[in-house]
């Protein structure tokens, strides 16, 4: 049998994401094996482990999965902190860990080891996609981000990518992670941007609760000619986008955007079984499931980790987001992102991201940081 | 005159506008027992609080054996030889009677910061504590929790703690209040013993006139925070201020 451990934060604040991720993984395995849940006659067994969103527990769970349960491959987790704690375990046990959907760059960067692969996007991919979507000659952009690694790295990557498009950054605003009142930040941004001429945008990088876009929009940035922009988000969060029709940005996934057989199957099956569309982490989970089956088939079994790694290096496979490819250098999956514009549509109580254009993987110059 | 142990000089405290102790200058000598009397709220306890440091003085000074201690904290004053028992019982309620006294002796012997020795191996503390408990007749209750003692016994323990400290200046604030008639003499005898030690001085706040008559060498009267009289017992008791403001009409004539 082939044992796959899904080590992820089933309980805790990200419960909802975790559930999506797990459903996605299962659907991926199902699709790839044609519903048999077997690869070359070997049964696939999925072992679930709850990290409780705590790095130490996540680490212990992964040790248990590799050490006691003898899992061949592990998938997870949701939180970057937990993921980073887990990375050395994979190296120690010499087994493959597919990171999905934790986003920190350093997972495939400074803290990377050869046993780590990631199907999820990383922060840079997000930021660079947005830069490609928003940038352009003569555009001036201010950024608003949370004051911690995710926010700062995101802005740094965004800024770097923006230079190539000819746009410029006028102001970077960082606020504490749990900020709820954005008046001061907005005032600072308005003051800075008020003097600038030409096309002006405010790019918001925000993770977790809170709704800076809505709050700042209510302060009427159009008085200063400023347009708000931000990346895509999970379905529930798109409600906040309803107040911002016409807003542009880049997103990782929205179920109506990708056009390919895998996504068609995913959307149809998901509606059938759960009466709701698939979301970010369903797509991500599925991509990891598909990658596993593909890799095991290619390596001819899951026992030999070295063979698996060889097989996965540079491997390209089909996912709900189209073709993905593990980059040989840092094992990060290269993938398509989507430039969208928000529209109000009848029957939907959220702002719908409508595709403006696909940003192919070769359009984004994602830096390699594990050297 | 014998040696002056404690002295207050124009000692004053104000609470808002209320002058609770008003420029009291007075000195206390070795081998002497001074009774402090005065109506309720005259400032007796507050005067004690100023001397022992619970309340900072607004102005004036307190000198202990010539040293100005006005700015020192409560603990430092205690270590220099000022001991105090409280009017309203104030003990360590969920420790045993014995432990209460041991703590006091440990403090006197400066063993509080012994971090790495076992407390129970200090038998000298236990022995000294037992001796004191015998003197106040609490030796049968050493293992009882203080919170379970009846009021009268708590008052006795209060006195035991003070004796355990063995200070130069003893300050008693109504030590026998709430003590039954057969118990009070035990405490009064103890106080008499302390007084007999010519190195110490005793300050005693009391409302019971017979106690004052039998023990005091000298009486000072506080009234509205000010020193209203100071002299030998007979003379002070007869004075107008005491008769009028303090004694009121004798009970039986009502």
């Amino acid at each position, binding site marked *: 049998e082939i044992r796959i451990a899904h080590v992820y934060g089933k*309980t*805790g604040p990200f419960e909802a994401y975790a559930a999506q991720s797990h459903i996605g993984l299962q659907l991926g395995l199902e699709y790839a094996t044609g519903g048999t849940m077997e690869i070359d006659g070997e049964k696939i067994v999925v072992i679930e482990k*709850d990290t409780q969103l*705590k*790095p*130490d527990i996540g*680490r*212990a769970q992964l*040790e*248990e999965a590799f*050490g*006691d349960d003898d899992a061949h491959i592990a998938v997870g987790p949701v939180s*970057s*902190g937990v993921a*980073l*704690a887990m*990375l*050395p375990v994979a190296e*120690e046990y010499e087994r493959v860990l597919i990171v999905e959907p934790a986003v*920190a760059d*350093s997972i495939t960067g400074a803290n990377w080891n050869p046993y780590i692969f990631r199907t999820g996007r990383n922060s840079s991919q997000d930021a660079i996609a947005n830069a490609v979507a928003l940038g352009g000659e003569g555009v001036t952009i201010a950024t608003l981000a949370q*004051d*911690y*690694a*995710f926010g*700062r790295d995101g802005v740094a990557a965004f800024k770097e990518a923006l230079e190539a498009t000819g746009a410029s950054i006028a102001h970077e605003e960082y606020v*504490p*992670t749990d900020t709820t009142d954005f008046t001061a930040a907005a005032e600072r941004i308005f003051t800075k941007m008020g003097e600038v001429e030409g096309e002006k945008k405010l790019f918001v990088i925000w993770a977790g609760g809170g709704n800076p876009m809505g709050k700042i929009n209510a302060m009427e940035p159009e008085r200063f000619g400023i347009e708000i922009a931000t990346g895509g988000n999970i379905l529930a969060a798109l409600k906040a986008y309803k107040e911002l029709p016409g807003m542009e940005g880049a997103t990782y996934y929205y179920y109506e955007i990708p056009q390919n057989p895998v996504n068609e199957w995913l959307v149809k099956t998901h509606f059938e079984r759960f009466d709701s569309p698939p979301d970010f982490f369903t797509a991500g989970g599925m991509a990891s499931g598909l990658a596993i089956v593909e890799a095991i088939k290619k390596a001819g079994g899951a026992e030999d980790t070295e063979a698996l790694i060889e097989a996965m290096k540079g491997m390209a496979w089909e996912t709900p987001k189209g073709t993905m490819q593990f980059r040989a250098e840092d094992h990060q999956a290269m993938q398509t992102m989507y430039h969208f514009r928000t529209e109000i549509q009848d029957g939907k109580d959220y702002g719908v991201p409508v595709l403006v254009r696909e940003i192919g993987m070769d359009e984004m110059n994602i830096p390699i940081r594990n050297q | 005159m014998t040696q002056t142990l404690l002295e207050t000089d124009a000692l004053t405290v104000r609470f808002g506008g209320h002058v609770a102790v008003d420029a009291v200058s007075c000195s206390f000598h070795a081998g002497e027992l001074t009774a402090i009397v005065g109506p309720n709220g005259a400032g007796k306890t507050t005067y004690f609080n100023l001397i*022992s440091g*619970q309340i900072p003085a607004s102005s004036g000074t307190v000198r202990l054996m010539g040293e100005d201690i006005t700015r020192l904290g*409560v*603990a*430092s004053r*205690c270590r220099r030889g000022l001991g*105090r028992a*409280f009017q309203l019982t*104030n*003990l*360590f*309620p*969920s*420790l045993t009677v014995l432990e209460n006294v041991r*703590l*006091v002796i*440990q*403090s*006197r012997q400066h*063993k*509080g*910061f*012994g*971090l*790495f*020795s*076992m*407390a*129970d191996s*200090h038998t000298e503390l236990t022995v000294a504590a037992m001796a004191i408990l015998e003197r106040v007749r609490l030796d049968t209750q050493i293992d009882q929790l203080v919170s379970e003692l009846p009021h009268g016994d708590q008052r006795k323990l209060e006195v035991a*703690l003070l004796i355990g*400290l063995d200070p130069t200046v003893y300050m008693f604030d109504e030590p026998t209040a709430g003590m039954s008639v057969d118990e009070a003499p035990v405490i009064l005898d103890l106080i008499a013993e302390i007084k007999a030690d010519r190195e110490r001085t005793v300050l005693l706040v009391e409302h019971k006139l017979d106690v004052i008559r039998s023990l005091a060498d000298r009486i000072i009267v506080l009234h509205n925070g000010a020193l209203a009289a100071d002299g030998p017992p007979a003379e002070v008791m007869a004075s107008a201020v005491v008769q009028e403001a303090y004694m009121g009409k004798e009970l039986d004539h009502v």
Partner: protein
Amino acid sequence: MIVKLLSGDKPRSAVLTAVLLVILICLAGAPFIFDGVRPLDTAARICIFILLVASYDLLLGYGGIVSFAHTMFFGLGAYGIALASTHMGRGFDALLAGSFAGALAAVVLALLIGLFSLRVRAIFFAMITLAVASAVAVLVSQFSAITGGEDGLTYKIPRVLTSANRMGEFLGTRVSGKILNYYLVFTASLLLFLLLLRIVNSPFGRVLQAIRENDFRAEAIGYRVVWYRTVATCLSAATAALAGSLFAIWLRYVGPDTTLSFEIMLDILLMVVIGGMGTMYGAVIGATLFILAQTYLQNLMGSASEATAALPLIPDLLDPDRWLMWLGILFILSVYFFPSGIVGRLRERRAS
């Protein structure tokens, strides 16, 4: 001899003695008694938390000081190791320097907090520490260049202490550096625990108890309360930092969620209270029980929920994903049923 080691503080209950012995034996022989990585990890975690909880008991149970900043000190020790190991490279010198620096930083910080805020009312002190601890957690995430931010730090410890160091077999178990590492954790925790036990039973410990009871009177019999409290805070902070260092050595990862979060603070509180405040042995019982529950409650619930699958509603409530709710209920029930902690309860039974 044994009584001396325990500083004369005997368990004072046959059941308690038995339970403590079982725990001691299990922890001492964990690598050989139990199979697999999970139990060993659990055992190490139990050792570390016993120490951490005991250091908190010194403060809370004996000193009567409610502080929410204990994880902060724990974190300082852990980050000490992490930073030393990242910057000095793997090696025992880094471990020594890291734990020393961590403990020192903890003492200095405790001294500052202590002298400044032990003067305010107890309940305000608690709230100040809560606010300071949450601010420190945020600062750690903001200064990500040094601390690794939310994501934390991964680093290497001396090879001797990792499973890469294979040292042959003993009693049918493969002995590796990991087991060596475990015994480092175990021995250090045991020694420090005995030291704490000595401190609470010293004259100093008695003064702390007196201060907890009635600080006003303690001052009046000549004890400088602020100093005693500050020293207690510093001692407890230093021990917590050392526990943090051990945790960092064991885990080889340090992040805000593992060392600084308010959740851990609450876990510590619960362990102290379940075990029994002001008893030290309570720390042993509380930490062991809680860590076992935290590790195995979910598995247990999983099997319980499967076993009751036929019934209505019950399997839903027993769903492993609802384990947090049961943890909350555990919080409430333990305070209900063990108002004086398990140790207190066991001793009462003997008394009556």
